[in-house]
């Protein structure tokens, strides 16, 4: 590790993180204090300030859980429970992950197919592209519950409806990125292909596709994060039995704030992991294609 990395990256990030955690603790004390004061007067407890602060940070249903409470909950529900247990965060993350992955795969495929159609068929470019953009102003996340209920009423239940929401959210970035990528070869290179007497298919596979790969992976990073959001929101309706979304909803019903925060952390870790995996694949593909580290 270069000394610059330490000074320019790690120290600032860690400092800001520490500041954020400190603010979190202070906020937790202040937000939980009124309720704790009520409790104390009701139980006729008098305490020193230190004890009082300690109790605000260890309420079972706090308004804002302290970081260590959340960390403890996450740790318990991740490492100390059986995978099949209903309380295991790994189990819920797994359920969400499966519909995220299916939706992402479908969405990427659909996005690529649409992009290929758009660059080859002019009528499609002129007529479809504006509607694809308009389609994203439909708040699908907001109507996801309805989609799921309607699909459920014709006996399409389980993984597929949730995956379809993810598909809808993830195809857009892929389409836009892929259209841009497939159009990215320079005129000079296209002309060169023409002097080689290359067919349209050859130009496509040997010039356009390789040129589009970096664009594709950038969009896939956006798309997989969107897929996860779609999967989580897709779990909200129909009483949701499993998945990170169902944990959020259940926590919201029973005011289990620590559970909500733990589910939120699980979702965030999942998102970060998924984006990192796509980034890693991008790096491997780039190297396999002969790219050199900049």
């Amino acid at each position, binding site marked *: 590790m270069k000394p610059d990395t330490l000074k320019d990256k790690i120290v*600032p990030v860690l400092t*800001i993180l520490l500041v954020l955690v400190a603010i979190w603790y202070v906020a937790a004390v202040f937000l939980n204090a009124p309720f704790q004061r009520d409790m104390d007067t009701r139980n006729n407890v008098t305490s020193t300030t230190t004890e009082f602060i300690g109790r605000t940070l260890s309420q079972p249903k706090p308004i804002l859980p302290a970081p260590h409470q959340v960390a403890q909950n996450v740790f318990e529900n991740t490492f100390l429970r059986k995978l099949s247990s209903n309380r295991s965060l790994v189990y819920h993350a797994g359920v969400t992950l499966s519909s995220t992955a299916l939706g992402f795969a479908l969405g990427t495929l659909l996005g690529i197919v649409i992009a290929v159609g758009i660059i080859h068929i002019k*009528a499609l470019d002129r007529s479809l592209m504006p*509607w694809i953009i308009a389609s*994203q102003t439909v708040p699908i996340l907001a109507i996801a519950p309805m989609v799921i209920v309607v699909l459920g009423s014709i006996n399409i239940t389980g993984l597929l409806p949730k995956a379809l929401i993810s598909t809808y959210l993830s195809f857009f970035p892929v389409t836009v990125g892929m259209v841009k990528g497939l159009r990215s070869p320079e005129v000079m290179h296209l002309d060169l292909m023409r002097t080689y007497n290359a067919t349209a298919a050859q130009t496509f596979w040997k010039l356009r596709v390789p040129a589009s790969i970096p664009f594709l992976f950038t969009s896939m990073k956006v798309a997989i994060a969107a897929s996860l959001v779609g999967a989580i929101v897709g779990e909200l309706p129909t009483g949701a039995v499993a998945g990170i979304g169902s944990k*959020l909803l259940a926590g*919201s019903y029973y005011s289990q*704030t620590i559970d909500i925060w733990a589910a939120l952390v699980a979702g965030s870790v999942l998102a970060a992991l998924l984006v990192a995996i796509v980034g890693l694949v991008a790096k491997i593909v780039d190297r396999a294609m002969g790219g050199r580290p900049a």
Partner: protein
Amino acid sequence: MKQVVLSWQGLIALLCVVGAMVMLPVFGAGATQPPSAGTVILIALLAIVAALISFAPLSTSLVAPALFVGAHGAAWLLLGTLSGNEGFAGASFFLLLAACWLLAWRCVTELSELKPTTPSSQWLLRLLIPAIFGAWILIIWETITRGAGIPFVLLPPPSAIGARIIGSLPILGEDIRQTIFKAVLIGYTIGCVSGFVVAILADRFAFLRRGLLPIGNLVSALPMIGVAPIMVMWFGFDWPSKAAVVIIMTFFPMLVNTVAGLAASGNMERDLMRTYASNYWQTLVKLRLPAAMPFIFNALKINSTLALIGAIVAEFFGTPIVGMGFRISTEIGRMNVDMVWAEIAVAALAGSIFYGVVALAERAVTFWHPSIRGG
């Protein structure tokens, strides 16, 4: 000059019409008001003539209008035969519909080949082509739901949704006021402004930028919509909790984009500002902020859809008895699917208008940018 133009859409359309004529009648047994033979012949004739015209070696400006009239006239007549015969449409009906659709496709293909010279006709064409596409989505939706008798609960026809929108304007107005004018607009404004201010601070202090940006990049990829239940607990059921969700969702895209934008101005321009002896704030206001505008507007556009989504989803976690999210979740429970679709249509329209306004503002502010100037 070529004798015949190859038009595969026209060819298949002709085959469809022939097939439809073989499989008559248009509606199966039991239809209460079957269309007269004259109407069916008129539809078929319109389609056939339009298909034949698509083979003719005429100029596009002649073929396209003829196709337009033929395809849409036939489709209009076909829609008219539906009333009273819902659910009895046979193969013949759908073959005729397919023929009309193929002709409309051919029409769009012809229109895309047009190279208009005046700006106004160019503008008109750019509007007309997507409009035909959109209209056909509605036509196919309407004919299939009504023709094949798809249960109303599954998918109501667009005409019923339109009627519902007109019939319940006051309720929709109330929902829009609650969700869009309170939660979305307030949250969007606060979120974008605070993201912008923090970005300026991060730009001023390098330490903050180095620390905050990686975190900001990470957070903007996280499912921020998950904070909705927490915000509802903190700020109560009314619009402030929804606005809070919107603030959180819009803050990070704005932060990340503005910081990236502030780095966009070239070194040479900055050096020039230094030779003018301008201080930090002068450089910021006169050079770097204008240069950052494309990035800032990018964030504003992303946020315009995010804000609407955030507000509506937050309403699923508890809300007073008004608001678009509330209406969607309760009306689906009461199987009033047309009301839900009306709400969806209004939301989509509102989202498009919001996005359009931001895009127009972008055009006005970043008129100098190559993507607007048009190379």
